[in-house]
């Protein structure tokens, strides 16, 4: 590829736009990735704003009114009481520990991704491969953790929760375990719905990110980017991967902490 595409014959360099100018001094692909990420930001914002609206329209848990915290569909649950299980530690109450581990996994895979981008700048093929593998591993670990958390959430605690409902004009008591889209042992059904939608939509993004990372790893190891002369594809997919990490930072705060 011509390294000096200035005044000579019009060599089409992928990094300059067709008119020979580069708006905002970024390549076409990167700018479009940024605009896609902005639109994706709106989608995730819509989900989180919906969570805020629905949560504020429900009764909040108040120790003065409701006494000791227990799962009830009369008020919105406290997340740290819901997410307190950790794999292999059955029956041990460890609030938010597993979510914390998942957060660190994702942050760390973001770091290995940015290390891969840095290695790409230096045309260090071996280092790009190494860091892409770590990133893929981090993504897969996160997905596995999320699968475990969903399974636990769906199956529920051993005791379950007793709910009262009117069936054929009579009050009936029934114990429900776990949650699905219509029933929820932890609180109002809307809480479970939002959990499935928000973490599910994020998990789908992680999944597609892992698929893209595998593709990039494959093409790196076959030397495509080395032949092309630059590793910009690693940067573009890196932008997407960091965005997925960024969304998790927000989900972690607004779904699990606040």
């Amino acid at each position: 590829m011509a390294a000096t595409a200035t005044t000579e014959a019009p060599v089409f360099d992928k990094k300059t736009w067709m008119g020979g100018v580069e708006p905002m001094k970024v390549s076409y692909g990167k700018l479009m990735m940024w605009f896609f990420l902005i639109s994706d930001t709106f989608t995730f914002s819509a989900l989180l704003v919906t969570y805020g609206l629905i949560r504020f329209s429900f009764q909040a848990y108040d120790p003065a009114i409701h006494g000791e915290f227990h799962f009830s569909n009369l008020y919105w649950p406290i997340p740290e009481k819901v997410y307190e299980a950790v794999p292999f530690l059955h029956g041990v109450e460890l609030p938010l520990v597993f979510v914390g581990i998942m957060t660190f996994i994702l942050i760390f895979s973001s770091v290995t991704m940015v290390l891969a981008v840095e290695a790409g700048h230096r045309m260090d093929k071996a280092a790009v491969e190494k860091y892409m593998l770590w990133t893929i591993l981090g993504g897969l670990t996160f997905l596995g953790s999320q699968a475990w958390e969903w399974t636990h959430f769906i199956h529920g605690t051993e005791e379950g929760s007793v709910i009262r409902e009117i069936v054929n004009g009579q009050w009936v008591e029934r114990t429900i375990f776990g949650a699905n889209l219509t029933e929820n042992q932890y609180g109002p059904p809307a809480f479970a719905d939002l959990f499935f939608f928000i973490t599910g939509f994020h998990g789908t993004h992680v999944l597609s990110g892992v698929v893209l990372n595998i593709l990039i790893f494959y093409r790196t190891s076959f030397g495509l980017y080395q032949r092309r002369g630059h590793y910009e594809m690693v940067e573009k997919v890196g932008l997407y991967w960091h965005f997925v990490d960024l969304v998790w930072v927000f989900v972690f705060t607004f779904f699990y902490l606040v």
Partner: protein
Amino acid sequence: MADHSSHHHDTEPGVIAEPQTKAIWRTFIILSVLTAFEFLIAFTLHAGFLKTSIFVLMTIVKAFYIVGEFMHLKHEVKSLIWAIILPCIFVVWLLLALLMEGGFIFVAR
């Protein structure tokens, strides 16, 4: 960054520059410390305005480091930075408006 052409292989094949990873690890440490701090707050403070504001503040700082350093936005041109940040400010307004709306729905129920 602006000068992509410098990444074209003007170095000899086989000669690989030294890694420049100091800033990356620094950002990682900042993100880790902030997350650990959030955990600390989650179990030491009672729910309330102060706790929520600390969480929101920590989240914004973390977002700044991820977008600024990892996604490199801090080092892009100003017009790109604003093209990304401005729309997000309107989202904040949507969030506040609908949180208030949620409060009204609660009262009306």
